[in-house]
């Protein structure tokens, strides 16, 4: 039956043999080169430290990272349907769940690649323009590698949830446009949702996933929205994550592939 690694290899080939992927990665790299450069030009008196530059760059460019990962995730299943290749893909001696899993793994690998690219480029370029040493402080914590790592981790959790949502929408609706649109809408409208459904006012609102996707709030305070804890937030995220994947796998496994 061949090996499962081959399936992931196939999915990777379908991601990286497209010009689009390389355009997205190039844009990500270029923006991460330009941002520290702009900081350098704007910074007259040498007030910005290395880690400040890296952190500020990341805060801006991580949006791109999420958007590109969402684009790849949304196209992963929906693309096969719009190309019609799904019919050739599903008539091989592999169960549908394994094929979907290989797709999901390839998507997560792409999102990791984007994140690593962002970190490496923004750090590398910042190191050219700014001297080392941690300086300044943010929300009472000194900005340094440890703080940066935690911020990146929180950002990645946010991305990971958004990508899982996009992947599910892609598998359910089989239309990449809808999946991209909906997941990016949720990514940007999170703040508005959080305002509308304030957990201080509605107690049920603390069970919504949007409240918890940005875990970086716990870096400043140990109490989250509506007085919940970090553990609670992680639990809610985990439940929604499993829910997204269960829906994706169930729908993809059961539904007829018709014209």
């Amino acid at each position, binding site marked *: *039956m*061949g090996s499962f690694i*081959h*399936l992931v*290899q*196939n999915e990777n*080939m*379908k991601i990286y*043999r*497209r*010009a689009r992927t390389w355009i997205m990665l190039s844009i990500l790299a270029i923006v991460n080169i330009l941002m520290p450069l702009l900081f350098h030009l704007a910074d007259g008196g040498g007030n910005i430290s290395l880690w400040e530059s890296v952190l500020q760059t990341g805060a801006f460019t991580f949006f791109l990272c999420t958007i590109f990962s969402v684009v790849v995730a949304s196209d992963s299943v929906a693309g096969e349907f719009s*190309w*019609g*290749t799904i*019919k*050739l893909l*599903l*008539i*091989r*001696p*592999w*169960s549908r769940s394994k094929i979907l899993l290989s797709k999901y793994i390839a998507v997560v690998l792409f999102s990791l690649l984007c994140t690593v690219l962002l970190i490496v480029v923004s750090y590398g370029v910042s190191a050219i323009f700014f001297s080392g040493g941690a300086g300044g402080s943010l929300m009472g914590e000194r900005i340094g590698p440890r703080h940066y790592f935690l911020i990146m981790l929180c950002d990645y959790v946010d991305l990971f949830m958004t990508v899982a949502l996009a992947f599910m929408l892609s598998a359910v609706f089989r239309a990449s446009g809808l999946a991209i649109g909906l997941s990016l809408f949720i990514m940007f409208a999170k703040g508005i949702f959080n305002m509308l459904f304030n957990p201080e006012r509605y107690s049920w609102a603390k069970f919504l996933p949007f409240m918890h996707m940005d875990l970086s709030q716990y870096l400043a305070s140990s109490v989250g929205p509506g007085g919940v804890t970090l553990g609670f937030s992680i639990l809610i995220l985990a439940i929604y994550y499993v829910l997204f994947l269960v829906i994706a796998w169930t729908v993809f496994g*059961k539904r*007829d*592939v*018709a*014209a």
Partner: protein
Amino acid sequence: MMGICKANMLQWGQTWAEGVIEMQQEPVVRLEGVTKKVSSKTLVEDVTLDIPPGQVFGFLGPNGAGKTTTIRMMVGLTKITKGDIKICGYSIKDHFEQAIVHVGAIVENPEMYKFLTGYENLRHFARMMSGITEERIQEVVQLVGLSNRIQDPVRTYSLGMRQRLGVAQAILHRPKLLILDEPTNGLDPQGIRELRDYLRRLCREEGTTVFVSSHLLSEMELMCDAVAIIQNGRLIDVRTLAGVEGAQETTVETAFALDRPEQAQELLGGGTIRDGLLIVRLDRNGIADTNARLVQSGFKVYGIQKITRSLEDQFLEMTGSDQIG
């Protein structure tokens, strides 16, 4: 299980009794009361059909008759509402992976990854099966005649070339059953001819059973050993086609072109006259005897012709002019 299937392949050349398919072997595909319902509409109703090994088997029906739906069920793209389909003895429902290994297929158009080259497309599908070597890929490329263009992106391919690539991906793993849905769609006459010759060769040389659907009757007549005819989701007939040895025992309408047909009719004591031709129902020997009698009685026989109704005539006769339901 694979052993059974192989054994069947070896003795593929068998005789068919006229009109009725005699089952002496384990069929490659067995459809058992297959029904497909989508909400309240019945797309395919209670289709029971055995496809014997080593044949080019046609699946004929007007547009919307349920051909593609049936094929989708055969390859597991669509769930079967009722009944079961067995391929080489394995149920496509319960043992999907064991059943589908024996199948190569193109469902509808041969859609490929356009941003990949032809070779990368084949590599992609080869990775999903075990035991497909680099040599096998090259061999298949050669076979479908794409050697010169295989390293080009598929988006630069013509429809005919994509059709060839489609066949290539379907036969990579030497399947026992090759399913082609409307394979001649969009092909030029040259391409159709090549495909036809190729399928016949595959059937003859590798013992592959080919299941091919079409609404083109003339195509089927040239390509298939037997056809199943489907209309409005129901199987209405299964029959063997021309070239069957059993045919010589049957009587066919025979037209005699001769001078004085009315007197010839009197002499023979039967037959009808149509367009100045005398038409009599005769078997093989009957034709020779009748001819001798006519000549001995001084008639001038200019020509003798069997009136074989084409599949098209039979098809229209059977399906009538029903609306797509």
